[in-house]
């Protein structure tokens, strides 16, 4: 199957070209070309942009702005983003990491989109041709837009190494498709009690989601077995996990509390 490819040097021109029916933005190709290869006839052409800003990582005053075309490999090569390295490394094998982009990962359906799980826990902001949005709002509306936005970047407070607790559970080692992915950004007070929590889950819905009830249940608790019991019990609240060849929804629901507990205590 052959499709026309339109390449623009400006983001605005590329964004305008996306208004045509059936035209999809081509980032690394790991989602869109994959869909075409699989026989998705709704895609009638590709649009791409070579704008340098899409491929730039900028860190200023503790805030990182990562262009949408930045690859997982580029994240791993950037020492200033060491806090994101465990998340980027969870995406695919070396070839996929050379291709898969930050912007594309925002649109990856379950069981993919592990990097977005990390971004959701870290309260990133998504910048697009139509403005900025908190990542949670962006994800909630990502498939509902009448006119597709062209995501240009994500920004977030630079996480120090180890701030983000991240776990991707897969059956194939060392790299496999996710059974469940959990990211937790926790702040502890001087007494070792949780003062703030943002917990994100992958594969527990059709897209990454927050675990709001479990977050509330962790506030004021120390990360010891007796004190996390309530949060572990409610980690599945509001989830609607996917069933796919990797795992059933039932299985994902059963193992989520086990792995969440290990992530908190590990």
């Amino acid at each position, binding site marked *: *199957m*052959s*499709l*026309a*490819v339109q*390449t623009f040097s400006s983001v605005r021109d590329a964004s305008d070209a996306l208004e045509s029916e059936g035209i999809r933005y*081509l980032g*690394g*190709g*790991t989602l869109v*070309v*994959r869909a*075409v*290869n*699989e026989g998705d006839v709704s895609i009638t*052409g*590709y649009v*791409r942009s070579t704008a340098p800003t899409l491929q730039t990582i900028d860190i200023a005053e503790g805030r990182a702005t990562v262009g949408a075309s930045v690859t997982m*490999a580029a994240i791993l090569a950037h020492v200033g983003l060491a806090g994101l390295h465990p998340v980027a490394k969870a995406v*695919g*094998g*070396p*070839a*996929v990491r*050379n*291709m898969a982009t930050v912007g594309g990962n925002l649109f990856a359906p379950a069981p993919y989109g592990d990097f977005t799980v990390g971004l959701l826990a870290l309260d990133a902001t998504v910048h697009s041709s139509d403005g900025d949005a908190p990542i949670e709002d962006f994800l909630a509306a990502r498939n509902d837009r009448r006119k597709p936005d062209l995501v240009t970047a994500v920004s977030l407070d630079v996480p120090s190494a180890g701030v983000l607790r991240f776990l991707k559970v897969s059956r194939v080692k*060392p*790299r496999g498709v996710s059974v469940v992915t959990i990211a937790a950004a926790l702040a502890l007070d001087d007494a070792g009690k949780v003062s703030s929590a943002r917990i994100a889950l992958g594969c527990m819905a059709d897209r990454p989601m927050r675990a709001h009830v479990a977050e509330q249940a962790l506030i004021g608790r120390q990360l010891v077995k007796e004190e996390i019991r309530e949060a572990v019990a409610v980690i599945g609240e509001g989830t609607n996990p996917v069933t796919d060849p990797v795992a059933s929804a039932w299985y994902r629901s059963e193992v989520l509390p086990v792995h969440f507990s290990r992530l908190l205590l590990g």
Partner: protein
Amino acid sequence: MARVPVQFTLNGQDRAEFVESGVTLLHALRHTMGDTSPKAGCQQGTCGACTVIVDGELRLSCLTLAETCEGASIETAAGLANEGLLHPLQRAIVDGFAAQCGFCTPGMIMAAKTLLDHTPNPTRDDVVEAISGNICRCTGYEPIIQAVLTAAQSNSQKAG
């Protein structure tokens, strides 16, 4: 469908061809340029059989559009042997019985070559990580891992 010109270097040789717009690099290599070493496996980015090196980086040719490789330097397994002599990775794969059906082998070798190009003395974990995007359904991986380590050793002995 419109045809578009693409020019790149394939295994050190300049190539200029017309390909259908939107065609993958895998399709262009196999059906236009006659290089059948990258294999069409899953075409979903999962199996790694189509793996090639583009400008020194490992890429999945089934998910890469030929038009996006304009001006690039592309390496495939077909270009590794030199004047009839197998590349050390190919030699180690053959000697170590690390290919059974052989379908994954060209992609596996390119993944391993990228590793050795950047890390001449890899650990076993380095090798496992390097080939983690390449699926083999025959060997159980162990002979492949050993072959890559053997090739690395062979390279370092030559360098020494």
